[in-house]
């Protein structure tokens, strides 16, 4: 339907195109242009410095720490979330009494606002009166400095992220498990296969695309992490939990090094663009 419809298509797409142009294309072009200048705001009085901002960043200890922290956080968060999601999905997938109440209950942490989640955990991590340390003390274990010990703060962030988003991993993996045909399990049990071989040779291979998709989704999100770092640790103690988003925020909106912050932002866009490519090629594979 609608032959000769180029003008109609344009009219229908126009509002979206205008918004994309003003809110994404132009800002991306501008942030790239700004990354080539030494400037504290715009292009007036800006000094063209070419790739100097990038060179400075790569040489700067703080930037490298932020990049390393982001990588560590993304890997730990993705692994723990996919792992927890898989265990939960395997537990819930068989029919259990009351199962249809369990799934929505498990999804609750995921639908809460990130700032609400952060508020809860900020209180739970409190050294003197926080719930976690109260539980530790009650069981005779030593209390932990969840947010102020540089070796632990990052793990605390992973814990909060996993608590909030493992339910999403669980939901995707559960859908994958339910797509495995029952006949396969029946055939395996007729052949007398044990639970572990069945899992390794039937369930896991069929589940791999879901696990992969899940890991990709989670790593892309983990890579952007900002809210939790901002409100839980502020990037500290010292530089222990400074991530790339936090670094761009600080450089651009606290120290007004707009050129440097733009260069760091461009580096982030390139990395997430590469992740997007992997994601897109996976989606297209699934389509075919």
């Amino acid at each position, binding site marked *: 339907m609608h032959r000769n419809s180029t003008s109609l298509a344009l009219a*229908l797409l126009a509002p979206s195109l205008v918004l994309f142009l003003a809110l994404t294309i*132009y800002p*991306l072009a501008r942030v790239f242009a700004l990354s080539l200048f030494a400037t504290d705001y715009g292009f007036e009085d800006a000094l063209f410095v070419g790739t100097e901002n990038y060179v400075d960043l790569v040489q700067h200890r703080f930037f490298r720490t932020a990049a390393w922290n982001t990588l560590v956080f993304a890997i730990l968060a993705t692994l723990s979330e996919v792992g927890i999601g898989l265990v939960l999905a395997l537990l819930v997938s068989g029919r259990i009494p009351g199962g249809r109440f369990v799934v929505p209950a498990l999804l609750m942490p995921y639908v809460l606002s990130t700032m609400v989640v952060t508020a809860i955990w900020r209180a739970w991590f409190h050294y003197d009166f926080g719930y976690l340390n109260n539980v530790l003390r009650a069981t005779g274990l030593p209390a932990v400095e969840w947010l102020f010990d540089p070796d632990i703060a990052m793990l605390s962030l992973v814990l909060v992220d996993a608590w909030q988003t493992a339910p999403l991993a669980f939901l995707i993996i559960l859908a994958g498990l339910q797509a495995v045909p029952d006949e396969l399990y029946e055939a395996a049990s007729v052949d007398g296969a044990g639970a572990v071989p069945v899992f390794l040779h039937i369930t896991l291979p069929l589940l791999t695309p879901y696990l992969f998709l899940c890991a990709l989704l989670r790593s892309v999100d983990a890579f952007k992490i900002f809210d939790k770092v901002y409100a839980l640790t502020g990037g500290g103690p010292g530089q222990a939990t400074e991530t790339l988003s936090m670094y761009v925020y600080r450089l651009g909106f606290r120290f007004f090094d707009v050129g440097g912050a733009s260069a760091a932002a461009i580096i982030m866009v390139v990395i997430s663009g590469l992740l997007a490519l992997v994601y897109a090629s996976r989606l297209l594979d699934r389509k075919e």
Partner: protein
Amino acid sequence: MRKRIARAAAVYAVTAILLVPIVWMLTTSVRPPLEYVSDSISLIPSLVTLEHYRELIRGDVLGKAWNSLVVAVGTMALALAAGFPAAYALVRIRFPRKLDLAFLMFVLLVKLTPPISLAIPLYQVLRSLGLLDTLLGLIIVYQVYALPFAIWMLLGFVRDVPVEYEEAAMIDGASLLRRLGSIVLPLMAPGLIATSIFVAILSWNEFAYALLFIQSPDKFTLPTFIATLITEDETFWGKLSAVGLLASLPILVMVGAVQKGLTRGFSGGLK
């Protein structure tokens, strides 16, 4: 059989443990401060008080909730008004195959771009439009994420409307607007509602742009209001829990309303 019971017990135990933080929030919101600032691990308050809620209302929490609501409704309206025609065009009009695909790739790329990486130019755009520190400005910048998301989700729902109905109406001489109004939109109503709710939740929960583009406390949305309470470094946990609960209730209600659409939404996005 015994195995099944053991497994059910394990599922209940894990679910219960994972929900303790939410239960804690519920009970802390009605607990006197002296009771939660202690070394007790009991979750049951010995005394129920509404003082935290009263204090919040004195601190104008309803004003922040109103701001959040205005932004959520505005974001939703704009995303649907711009996103629906785009989704319709992408599904119904035969584009050169590559253009169609390129657009979808673009939508995906935006979805995956870190919000902070666009923050500096968006700040400058809003400033030059005089929209910095306004709720309207927030509604506009939220389109960065709301619009691609809405288009992505609506594509699946437009596809579900049989093209034959529209062709029949076309033969009878119905115009595009007529067909949209009397066939497509009514048939898509559940999908439109689900998409609106998802966009509203996205906006209701957003933090980074609200932090960067709103400076006056009377224009704060709930997440930025909560952040100021968190970072004040005092044990306002009763207040925090109470506002956390207030901020979560509308979402829980909305998610409950579209529970069936939830999985549909995800598969619509993945298909």
